[in-house]
């Protein structure tokens, strides 16, 4: 028990080191029914930076990620306590509209999940339901810029009417990223976005993540330590529902303060 309190205190201090945070998590607890999945997590997400969540399976990193756009809402037994704010606004406040929240906080999933519709419709769906575009020309422009930002435009510009499910795995994942940025979010959550991709597609997506950092804040959950080291500026290491250590990626991978972090990144646990 003593150790836990110590870690909690330590992370609270660490959280404050992040300059200009967009998301602030304080004393977050997540329960699935009786089971507690997240214990007293404090973490800050730096704006226009990539933050990586690493840790062994079942450590709660995806759970906390899904709190940021309230994707956990669909699980009836899931309960969130503590404070999570996005730009100062409490995410779990009763007056928050999840539709608006999810427009601001986009998400890319582990397995590419394009809609079984055309490439164009995949991108256009978000702007359409949020009423972001007024004319067809507008919409076409949004589709083009989104695909360009996702680095997919050159590959698909001649076949926008083809089904999005006909693309290769890496292209599908970039299509999903394009779809997420089409609604102009400020934060993009990525839940192991490369785990279903081959190394070449992974490299393309990683380059893309690095470019997207200029415009968006990105939080990426990953199992690959190399990936975290390559793409992120800040890294949080979770273990058994606790935030063990949080810091700049450089510090975490070169000089971890905690023994568990050290053990994990050197492959001794996890």
């Amino acid at each position: 028990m003593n150790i836990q309190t110590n870690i909690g205190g330590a992370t609270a201090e660490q959280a404050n080191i992040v300059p200009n945070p967009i998301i602030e998590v304080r004393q977050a607890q997540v329960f699935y029914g009786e089971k507690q999945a997240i214990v007293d997590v404090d973490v800050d997400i730096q704006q226009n930076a990539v933050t990586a969540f690493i840790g062994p399976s079942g450590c709660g990193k995806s759970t906390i990620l899904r709190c940021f756009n309230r994707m956990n809402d669909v699980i009836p037994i899931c309960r969130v306590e503590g404070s999570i704010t996005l730009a100062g606004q409490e995410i779990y406040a009763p007056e928050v509209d999840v539709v608006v929240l999810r427009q601001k906080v986009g998400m890319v999933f582990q397995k590419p999940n394009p809609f079984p519709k055309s490439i164009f419709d995949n991108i256009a769906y978000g702007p359409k339901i949020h009423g972001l575009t007024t004319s067809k020309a507008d919409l076409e422009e949004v589709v083009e810029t989104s695909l360009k930002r996702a680095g997919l435009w050159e590959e698909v510009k001649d076949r926008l009417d083809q089904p999005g499910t006909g693309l290769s795995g890496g292209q599908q994942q970039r299509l999903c990223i394009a779809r997420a940025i089409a609604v102009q979010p400020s934060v993009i959550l990525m839940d192991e976005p490369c785990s279903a991709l081959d190394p070449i597609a992974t490299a393309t997506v990683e380059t893309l993540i690095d470019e997207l950092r200029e415009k968006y804040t990105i939080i990426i959950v990953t199992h690959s330590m190399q990936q975290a080291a390559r793409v992120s500026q800040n890294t949080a290491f979770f273990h058994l529902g606790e935030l063990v250590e949080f810091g700049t990626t450089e510090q975490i991978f070169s000089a971890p303060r905690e023994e568990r972090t050290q053990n994990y990144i050197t492959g001794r646990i996890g």
Partner: protein
Amino acid sequence: MTDPDSIIATGRSPRHKAELRFRAYGIAAIIVSLGFLVVMVGAIVSRGTGAFQQTFVQIEINVPANKVDPQGTRDPNVIKKARFSSILKKAMRQRFPEAKSRQDKKSLYKLVSSTAEYTVRDAVVADPSLVGETSTFSIRASSDVDMFMKGNIDPTLEQSRRRIDDKQLAWIEQLRAAGQIEKQFNTQFFTGGDSREPEQAGIWGALAGSSLTLLVCFLLSFPLGVLAAVYLEEFASKGRINRLIEVNINNLAAVPSIVFGLLGLAIFLNFFQLPRSTPLVGGMVLALMTLPTIIIASRASLRAVPPSIREAAFGLGASKVQTTFHHVVPLAMPGMLTGTILGMAQALGETAPLLMIGMVAFIVDIPGGVTEAATALPVQIFLWADSPERGFLEKTSAAILVLLIFLVIMNLIAIILRRRLEVRW
């Protein structure tokens, strides 16, 4: 210890045999079931095809102007009132002058259908220039003659044991020698309503009744079933009540259809006082029966939509309703439609509940709307199968054929819809 290779080698041959044996059983099972199917369809086809033909007799009839239209107005309403039966009988006596006694004349008149006078009347009304002329009319033979022509009456039997007497046989031979009796395609069977006379009875009334009933059934059960399934699967919390409802729906699907008929009788007819024997009530009862099938099929196909599609839509900020109706329902639609069509096919073949709500009545008219008295295909089959006349035997089989063809068409539509709408991901 023995060498494992040799153990495995000795075990190979029995395993091989077991495999061959199992294959043989499987093939035998398929052959037996195919055999039953062939026997069933073969029996129906061989009996039913006769109904698609009808024997017609050519007779020269003089339509006397003084009897039909004394004033010479050529007004259809005047012509309609003339006594065509005596005109027809006179023509038949002229054709076969040897029929002198009362008994013989009666036999003679029985060669043609009792509805033949209306055939003559309608022809004259349609073409008034026939009045005052002698012309050849093609007249429907009576069912007994028709049966004889199709070889269903054995002329070698004793006279008292067959429905065609010796004189009639002689007349038929005369007509045949003169080429004045022949079998033609029976359009009446496909365009007419029911009749007491087998040679006049048609399937169209029952077909129209069935179509109207199915239309009502579809309009009620499809939206209700799909909405119920979507709500239960996508919106309702998966609690105890939802499970209870699911169990009850599954049980309802297994309730004998006659129970739904009794329910319809008690509620729709007796309580709500809806008109009995109508496609409206028939469709409502069949909708009750089809609903569980549609709900179960729709829920299954909703469940088969991958959760990643829902996540993708939610992640973009789509609301529950948007996610459901923009993405989930379109993906589940092929399965829902297949379930619905299979439910409808089941409803098409259903007899028992329709008996309960009075669709078993003898109805000659073709129903023009859902509130007019009608019968349905399976009920028509039941009615004809129950009729004593020999002529209805082939009509029964022919009606079964028509019903089977419709079922096959509906199942084909289900397959085509499935192929067309199915999206792969």
